């Protein structure tokens, strides 16, 4: 009997290996390094490994190859999204590592196992201990995210989905303040996330039953040669789509988003909101553009419908919110709809537009949530909208920066959001879905209303007597906000170099 020895191209999966290796190293640090030194070790390992992985991605530039026996595809979209994810993760890790904002020392609980309000919790708080387990968790999640858009078959996609989700469930429950809310967010995220990944898995099983293989290129061939029972295939595609749409929080699979975004510690929300969306849309693009492209007449109407409902309901719900984090959560739902508009174009312009939108949206999100961590009162972050009135009198710089991010979300010219929205709408229009474009533009107009309402509130309303203070951002948060703001501006003012990069990268290999 002959055994086929699998060939693994370690060089091509190096970015993923570096991040996951660093995560394992982080676990060892937790076990063997004295507590006082752990923080420094963890921050250095996290940021160092992300930078190394970014260098590895840049060195792979131009690669277009199916690696690891078909499980991982290293091509233009993969590398672009991996680079974006790593840069976003730098911002996320900087926010997570921040210790100068909260009077307790960090945004994370002193001891996650202690009961909220118990004697043990008070002891843990009084001892001044700050756990550092969140860093390896972040790196594990990031490793899954890097693999997700690169997955060349449905099983790798499923494993990557779980590797990115499981640490995020835990991280959502680690908030230092309002711990019951945070635990509740973790429970909701976990139960709904596990439910949706079961749908994804059963869908993969049905597609495997149709095609006899789970590799995306194999599914593509099976569809083009019409290999089996169409009903099995369509049910499988529908179930897999449910699992993926859950991760990007498209309506009607969005119910977890506002609760989790609000309950989770804000640095985790920033990381999760930006990076999960980028990774999950990467997987959606690969699945639909490579595996199921022969079936586009069946899935395009479905995804177009989801995009319309997501945009319209996302902005309408966002209008009615009174909490800053919830409003940003609903706005992220609406943005999932805008990105789906690019996905359903099913042409090169759609792919390019979606990739650009993901990068633009990710950096704006990191920046916006970073600003939310700065506005505080005695109980922690002041997230109620009314508390933000007159913020510009207290801190013009912070208010202006937040205004920049909101304008980018709204898609005002000279910010990245405008170029991104223009790219996806132009792609959708060129593919003949003008109805989708009309709904998209109308939703953007409604969305602009509630973003600009916040700006008006910050600049033209009277500040409250007992309003929150704006903390002067310490170095790490400043670095994250600067990174986000500069990318938002550069992508808006001089998008051509990034657009050229995407143009050369936007080709799937299979």
């Amino acid at each position, binding site marked *: 009997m002959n055994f086929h020895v699998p060939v693994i191209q370690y060089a091509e999966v190096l970015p993923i290996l570096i991040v996951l290796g660093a995560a394992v190293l982080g676990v060892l640090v937790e076990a063997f390094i004295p507590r006082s030194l752990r923080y420094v070790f963890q921050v250095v390992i996290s940021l160092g490994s992300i930078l190394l992985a970014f260098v590895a991605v840049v060195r792979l530039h131009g690669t277009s190859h199916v690696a690891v026996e078909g499980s991982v595809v290293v091509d233009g979209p993969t590398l672009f999204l991996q680079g974006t994810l790593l840069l976003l993760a730098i911002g996320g890790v900087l926010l997570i590592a921040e210790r100068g904002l909260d009077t307790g020392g960090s945004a994370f609980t002193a001891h*996650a*196992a202690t*009961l*909220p*309000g118990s004697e043990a919790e008070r002891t843990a708080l009084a001892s001044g201990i700050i756990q550092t387990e969140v860093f390896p968790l972040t790196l594990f999640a990031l490793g899954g995210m890097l693999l997700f858009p690169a997955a060349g078959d449905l*099983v790798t996609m*499923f*494993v990557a989905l*779980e590797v990115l989700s*499981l640490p995020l*469930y*835990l991280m959502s*429950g680690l908030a230092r303040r309002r*711990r*019951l*809310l945070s*635990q*509740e*967010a*973790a*429970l*909701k995220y*976990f*139960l709904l996330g*596990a*439910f949706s990944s*079961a*749908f994804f*898995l*059963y869908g*993969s*099983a*049905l597609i*495997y*039953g149709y095609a*006899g*293989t*789970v590799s995306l290129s194999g599914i593509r061939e099976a569809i083009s040669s019409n290999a089996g029972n169409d009903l099995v295939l369509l049910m499988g595609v529908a179930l897999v789509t449910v699992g993926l749409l859950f991760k990007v929080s498209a309506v009607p699979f969005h119910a977890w988003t*506002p*609760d989790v975004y*609000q*309950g989770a510690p804000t640095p985790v929300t920033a990381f999760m909101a930006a990076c999960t969306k980028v990774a999950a849309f990467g997987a959606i693009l690969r699945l639909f553009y490579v595996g199921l492209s022969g079936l586009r007449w069946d899935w395009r109407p479905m995804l177009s419908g989801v995009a319309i409902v997501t945009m319209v309901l996302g902005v309408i719900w966002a209008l009615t*919110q*009174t*909490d800053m984090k*919830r409003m940003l959560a609903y706005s992220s739902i609406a943005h999932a709809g805008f990105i789906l508009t690019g996905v359903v174009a099913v042409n090169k312009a759609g792919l390019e537009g979606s990739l650009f939108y993901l990068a633009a949206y990710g950096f704006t999100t990191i920046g916006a949530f970073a600003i939310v961590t700065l506005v505080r009162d005695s109980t922690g972050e002041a997230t109620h909208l009314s508390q933000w009135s007159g913020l510009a009198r207290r801190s013009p710089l912070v208010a202006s920066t937040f205004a920049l991010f909101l304008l980018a979300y709204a898609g005002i010219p000279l910010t990245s959001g405008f170029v991104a929205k223009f790219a996806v709408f132009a792609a959708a229009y060129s593919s003949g879905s003008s109805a989708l474009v009309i709904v998209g533009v109308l939703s953007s107009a409604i969305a602009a209303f509630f973003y600009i309402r916040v700006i008006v509130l910050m600049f033209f309303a009277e500040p409250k007597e007992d309003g929150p203070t704006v903390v002067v951002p310490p170095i790490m948060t400043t670095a994250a906000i600067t990174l986000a703001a500069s990318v938002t501006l550069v992508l808006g003012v001089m998008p051509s170099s990034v657009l050229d990069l995407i143009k050369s990268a936007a080709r799937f290999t299979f």
Partner: protein
Amino acid sequence: MNPANYLFVSALLFTIGALGVLTRRNSIVIFMCVELMLNAANLAFVTFARIQGNLDGQVIAFFTMVVAACEVVVGLAIIVSIYRSRRSASVDDVNLLKF
């Protein structure tokens, strides 16, 4: 025996699991229903492997089991921590985050 029968069983298990998630109120039971759905997928994978005549589906079943085990670890940790702070595992009690 006709392998299609196993597919019917797997679809039935999946449906029972999905309905259980939607209707049951105890988070542990909901979680068990999710596990049932994953195992339904496993049965489907193995049956399709038999029908298609290749081993991929059987190998995938192992992957699913490992992932399900990891999910148990994370899930029970979260459920236990909620139970300890609220003395209840009912999902109707976790309602602080309503708007």
